[in-house]
């Protein structure tokens, strides 16, 4: 069957607000925008399957249910420290202040969090958070959250377009006026006219070979925004989670929640040494246990104990693991050991306790690796996990530089700076998803109806169908090559020469990607979908490599072997990427906004 570009193939929908992405951020935004307005929600998968479903450990909010010393101020200070002071300070402030309300709202909509002894929402410890702060449901918090939002959202009059991929934003005179996409099922095109568009498309992990992210994470929102004229920021900061599965090969990268360490799990090398005690960064010396006993007491809720070094920030733990592996002290399959079984020395009912606290981890290792984590250690190693970088937005409204175009959740930048703390993403989705929905609705109400330019629609359709006209390169080959390239040259440990190679190689691949061909027809055709995703992957890869080259220092998640230390000069700016006049990607240094007096004081108090 040949594909036609006949415009009668389009279905057209008119909305006030169009939300692209139905994870936590998109659903929360849609709920907020719905009511009097016409709201459309588009997602690549079925509703309720977005990446948010995979989140395990919890959602961070200073409810102070477990430790009454917690407050928004401490949460703010922890987030700023974690982000190495590159966050846009207003975002961590809004986030810390509003997260508790947003979490309680979930309970009001039917979420059932684990409880404290006095019947409140229970909170657990997590890396970089001073107090137990993560509201959770065992280790399936993301499922609870997305299901709650979904089950509430379906009664709000939101129009949902499932299994529909947006490939282009439509603009008019610099303003966004809608979006163009295809139905994955039949391959038919859909045109959405909208006064405001909110991007909630998640991350970019599929640009790398080893990742905890699903196929959806091809950086679509980043790329859509970039091509529509918005700016990307902090793209050099890609979080490599220290603990992904390493064996067997087919499960490599699948996440092992930080909750394992929060519950007392320890990291050991092949010499049975607890290597995390060897290197504790200055910023954290005061807050870190200096002996195993104190660390254990911390995980069991002793308020006078300091956290074990396993719960240092992710970037640091990941690098310590890489060091052990590189220096030949790794495990059999090229990782290190993560041991939770050892807690049987400390508690009588350890086996049942582990199964209750970490049910999906127990399940995952049992089913996929044939390992019983209540008896044996796991093998783990770093995995590409989260993009701190994203669309540059206004901290309050979440609007990008393109009028009417908003972004929230993982595809937006500004909250996490150089590194995200665990649990701060789920709360990010709620806080900024709500804000984006609210301000997009406001923008829509204040602005006139729009109509997309038919020529833009035709062009978008032609571009989407082009791979059918060609039968050259296999899209999967190019995708695999790119993933290898990014993993090897722009991964956890970076150096100038390799990244230079990477930038050139990405540009070459981009050329080759522009001529990939696919066979078959438009109905549910994964080859075609992969071909169309390639451009997004190329855009984000180029952005990551360019921003990483620019930052000649090591900070947060960005580590350079050739510049292993933090440099004052680089503490003052965020890297911003945008499409230049000639269509090439360009980079600009943007000063980090100054702290308010109150913010500085809070940070000082929490040093």
């Amino acid at each position, binding site marked *: 069957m040949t594909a036609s570009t006949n415009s009668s193939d389009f279905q057209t929908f008119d909305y006030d607000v169009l939300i692209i992405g139905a994870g936590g951020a998109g659903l929360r935004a849609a709920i907020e925008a719905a009511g009097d307005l016409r709201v459309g929600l588009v997602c690549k*998968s079925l509703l309720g399957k977005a990446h948010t479903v995979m989140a395990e450990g919890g959602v961070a909010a200073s409810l102070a249910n477990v430790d009454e010393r917690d407050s928004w101020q401490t949460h703010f200070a922890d987030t700023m420290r974690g982000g190495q002071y590159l966050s846009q300070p207003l975002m961590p402030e809004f986030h810390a202040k509003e997260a508790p309300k947003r979490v309680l709202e979930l309970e009001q909509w039917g979420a059932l969090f684990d409880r404290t002894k006095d019947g409140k929402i229970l909170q657990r410890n997590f890396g970089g958070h001073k107090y137990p702060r993560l509201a959770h449901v065992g280790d399936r918090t993301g*499922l609870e959250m997305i299901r709650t939002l979904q089950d509430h959202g379906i009664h709000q009059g939101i129009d949902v377009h*499932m299994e529909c991929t947006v490939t282009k934003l439509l603009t008019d005179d610099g303003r966004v006026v809608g979006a163009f996409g295809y139905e994955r099922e039949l391959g038919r095109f859909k045109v959405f006219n909208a006064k405001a568009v909110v991007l909630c498309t998640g991350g970019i992990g599929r640009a790398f070979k080893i990742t905890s992210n699903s*196929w959806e994470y091809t950086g679509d929102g980043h790329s859509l925004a970039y091509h529509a004229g918005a700016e990307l920021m902090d793209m050099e900061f890609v979080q490599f989670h220290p603990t992904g599965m390493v064996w067997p090969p087919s*499960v490599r990268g699948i996440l092992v929640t930080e909750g394992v360490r929060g519950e007392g799990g320890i990291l050991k090398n092949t010499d049975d040494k607890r290597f995390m005690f060897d290197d504790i960064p200055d910023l954290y010396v005061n807050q870190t246990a200096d002996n195993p006993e104190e660390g254990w007491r911390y995980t069991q809720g002793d308020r006078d104990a300091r956290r074990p070094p396993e719960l240092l920030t992710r970037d640091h733990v990941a690098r310590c693991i890489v060091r052990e592996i590189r220096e030949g002290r790794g495990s059999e399959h090229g990782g290190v050991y993560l041991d939770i079984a050892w807690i049987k020395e400390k508690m009588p009912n350890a086996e049942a306790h582990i199964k209750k606290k970490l049910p999906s981890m127990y399940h995952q290792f049992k*089913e*996929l690796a044939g390992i019983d984590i209540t008896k044996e250690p796991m093998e783990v190693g770093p995995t590409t996990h989260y993009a701190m970088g994203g669309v540059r937005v206004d901290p309050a409204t979440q609007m990008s530089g393109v009028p009417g175009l908003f972004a929230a959740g993982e595809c937006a930048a500004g909250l996490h700076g150089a590194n995200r703390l665990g649990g701060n993403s789920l709360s990010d989705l709620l806080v900024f998803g709500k804000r984006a929905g609210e301000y997009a609705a406001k923008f829509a109400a204040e602005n006139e109806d729009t109509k997309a330019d038919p020529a833009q629609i035709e062009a978008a359709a032609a571009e989407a169908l082009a791979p059918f006209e060609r039968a050259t390169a296999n899209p999967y080959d190019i995708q695999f090559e790119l993933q290898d390239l990014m993993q090897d040259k722009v991964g956890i440990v970076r150096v100038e020469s390799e990244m230079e190679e990477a930038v050139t190689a990405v540009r070459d691949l981009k050329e080759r990607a522009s001529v990939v061909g696919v066979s078959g027809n438009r109905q549910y055709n*994964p080859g*075609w979908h992969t071909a169309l995703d390639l451009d997004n992957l190329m855009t984000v890869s180029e952005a990551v490599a360019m921003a990483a080259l620019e930052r000649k220092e090591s900070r947060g998640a960005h580590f350079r072997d050739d510049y292993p230390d933090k440099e004052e000069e680089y503490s003052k700016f965020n890297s911003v990427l945008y499409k230049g006049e000639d269509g090439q990607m360009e980079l600009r240094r943007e000063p980090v906004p100054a702290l308010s007096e109150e913010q500085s004081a809070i940070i000082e108090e929490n040093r």
Partner: protein
Amino acid sequence: MATRSFNVWRGDSSGGDYVEYTTDITEGMVVLDAVHQIQAESANDLAVRWNCKAGKCGSCSAEVNGMPRLMCMTRMADLPEGQPVNIKPMKAFPVMRDLVTDVSWNYRVKEKIAPFAPREPDVDDGTWRFPQEDGDRVQEFRKCIECYLCQDVCHVLREHNKHDEFVGPRFLVYLAALEMQPLDTGDRLLEIKDDYGIGYCNITKCCTNVCPEGITITDNAIIPLKERVVDRYYDPVQKIWRALTGKS
């Protein structure tokens, strides 16, 4: 490494047939990996729905050697060697293409069910208090990843196509989670009896047996709901009491 052969159902709503493929299997591979490898090597347009590849999203449901399974959680090593692996789409739902079925019916069913409606907050700050034990049962139900494998295996839907009269085990679990939610004030028993067709379930427990989340669907969700329905609508003492007092 060993080469294994697969019979994969290919087609669409108008019909289709098995197509044979072979691919190399390495240690630890799951069925979904094999399908992806086939897709990349020899059938670029082979349709398969998946997302997390970690048993968490419930997208990759299919029938592997006749068993309703998540493809991402079915290890190749656990399937008998020396015979081809047979993969076909779920039977209880219309085929879209290849291994992908149209599960939209499930979404329509859920929309009909009255949503969660909490009691007034227990504390002035708008929060509630209840012990963990009160939440345990519901948390079991909320582990559901909506893979619809239980729907696929239930004979009421699979063999008798009672999609208009019976919501299926997945939504009986959903209803149980609402009815037993410690804060919920809704009452859905009449609908459970009349519209959602709980009477069709004859407790074969096939649903419980296939649930990848290990939810004891029949014993913990369906039977208690059946008991509640019986208590209210069929118990003679209750009936007389209601007739006399007008209360339920």
